[in-house]
């Protein structure tokens, strides 16, 4: 059978969702931000809530998310997305609201806003891209940088004596009663991507049910910041990030009930 017989509109089994704008993604080649965006949009598309969704972009590489996601979006000051989203959701409780933040944004400068939005049990979805580094500003140490891992502000590796241990903010948040669903996923393999999508779907369905915060961490590479090729960085992530940030559900209310 000839290829051109396969490449016909009726045979399409996968294509980029229409919820992307026309703008090419500004992310570095191989960066997980793009995949995370795509899964998010696929969920919005499947739930048919594009017109009811407001997203909050952070300051970080994904500050430009609003250029790519064809939904109404706000760009929040560094670390303040949860505060911004709090107002958005409270003022428009019938909309779907999400934040999308990096590890510097969510777990360093935004710690107070993150903890308190979670503690208040605001009814929105938080998406947390943990790449263990400050991507946008050129690869500085993040709260989640691993011990011994190099970054531009710890060029000899994170020295936990001086710089402290990496912060597992996700595990902390899971303990707050206002937080309903917490999971940690990845987007570097087809399987991981599928699971991430499922998690995002649950997170948005929870919002419909007014369950409080649903928190989806996505461990991702920052191949530029890590100074590796994309595939190297994904391998490194499996070998080094996952042992410290194990993938899987952290708080699943269904299970709790059992």
């Amino acid at each position, binding site marked *: 059978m000839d290829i051109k017989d396969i490449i016909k509109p009726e045979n399409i089994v996968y294509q980029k969702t229409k919820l992307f*704008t026309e703008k090419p993604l500004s992310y570095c080649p191989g960066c997980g931000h793009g995949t995370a965006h795509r899964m998010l949009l696929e969920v919005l598309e499947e739930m048919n809530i*594009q*017109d*009811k*969704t*407001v997203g*909050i*972009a952070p300051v970080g590489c994904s*500050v*430009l998310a*609003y*250029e790519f*996601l*064809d*939904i*109404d*979006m*706000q*760009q*929040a*000051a560094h670390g*303040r997305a949860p*505060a*911004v*989203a*709090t*107002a*958005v959701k*409270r*003022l*428009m409780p019938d*909309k779907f609201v999400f934040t999308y933040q990096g590890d510097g944004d969510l777990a360093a400068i935004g710690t*107070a*806003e993150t*903890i*308190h939005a979670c503690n208040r049990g605001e009814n929105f979805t938080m998406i947390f891209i943990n790449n263990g580094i400050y991507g946008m500003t050129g690869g500085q140490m993040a709260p989640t940088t691993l011990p011994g891992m190099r970054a531009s502000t710890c060029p000899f590796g994170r020295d936990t004596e001086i710089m402290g241990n990496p912060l597992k903010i996700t595990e902390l948040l899971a303990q707050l009663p206002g937080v309903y669903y917490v999971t940690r996923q990845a987007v570097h393999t087809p399987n991981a991507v599928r699971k991430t999508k499922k998690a995002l779907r649950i997170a948005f369905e929870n919002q419909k049910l007014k369950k409080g915060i649903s928190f989806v961490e996505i461990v991702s590479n920052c191949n530029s910041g890590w100074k590796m090729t994309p595939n190297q960085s994904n391998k490194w992530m499996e070998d080094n990030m996952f042992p410290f940030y194990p993938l899987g559900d952290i708080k699943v209310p269904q299970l709790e009930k059992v």
Partner: protein
Amino acid sequence: MGELKLMKGNEAVAEAAIRAGADGYFGYPITPQSEIMEYLMTEKPYETTGMVVLQAESEVAAINMVYGGAACGRMVMTSSSSPGISLKMEGISYLAGAELPAVIVNVVRGGPGLGTIQPSQSDYFQATKGGGHGDYRMYVLAPASVQEMSDFVKIGFEMAFKYLNPVMILSDGAIGQMMEKVVLFDPIPRRTPEEIEKQCPWATTGKNANRKHNVITSLLLDSHEQEQHVFKLRDKYERMQKEDVKFEKIQCDDAEFLFVAYGSSARICQKAVDIARAQGIKVGLFRPITLFPFPSEELLKLSSQIKGILSVEMSLGQMIEDIKLAVECKIPVNHFGRTGGVIHSPGEVFEALKSTYLGG
């Protein structure tokens, strides 16, 4: 005529917010303005008009909540006092950069630092010159009575939406804490979501099929775009200057000397004018009501008949710079004022005028 009440300035702000049809208030306690949130929490407008009232975890969170709400086209506000306002500087700059409407009340206390909880006017520079980064301005209203604390909330929201710009109500601890009669304006119903979408087509209320997605941002990586954006802001500020300068002239017609003062100081100067007039000294009071845009043109006009200006501020002298620039240094302009929470009395102000311009 609306309802007559005896109220604290802070309470008047809160009541006015409800009556103006505000959609949300986000704040953090700080003396001398905590009554604003306390009044709202007692009145529970969320059970009546549906207005959201939320105590945030900090001033930083509060101003960013305001950002989020304003970006949905909602009428939202916050209030604080000096140290708390300093913490909002980044957020205010973001509001200005993203061209969002919001009302921010500063019930000023004495600084710098933790300072004192007593009334002061030492945040004039911060309010008018942009305490945050970048080329931006707020529209700054300076109430001098509890009545104006109420009225300016309404005007503040009007201006915020007219210009899509943050508006500051620059009050002080005296006006916030004092009680006076106030005639409350009749309640205005909150706009419906449909009305909001019509009034604010730029708002992020959910992209429907009829329009492009709305984006609220202040990021323009291309510096030429950023420059165009800043020029657009400048044009807006110039338009404020043309269309919405506010001021008050008291006994200025035959005045040879002028007090220029705003807020509490203007009240005190008004009494000082009476004292002076009683002694046959022809003094007037020029009260800027908008501190930005500053009523420069009017002041310049007036200055031709004036022999000297005393800028009376509860600070080391900040507005005096705008006065000098306004009158183009054509007549003497001097400062008098107590600071650090001390309030000058009418007598002191009068004495200062005498010793400055009348040889003691």
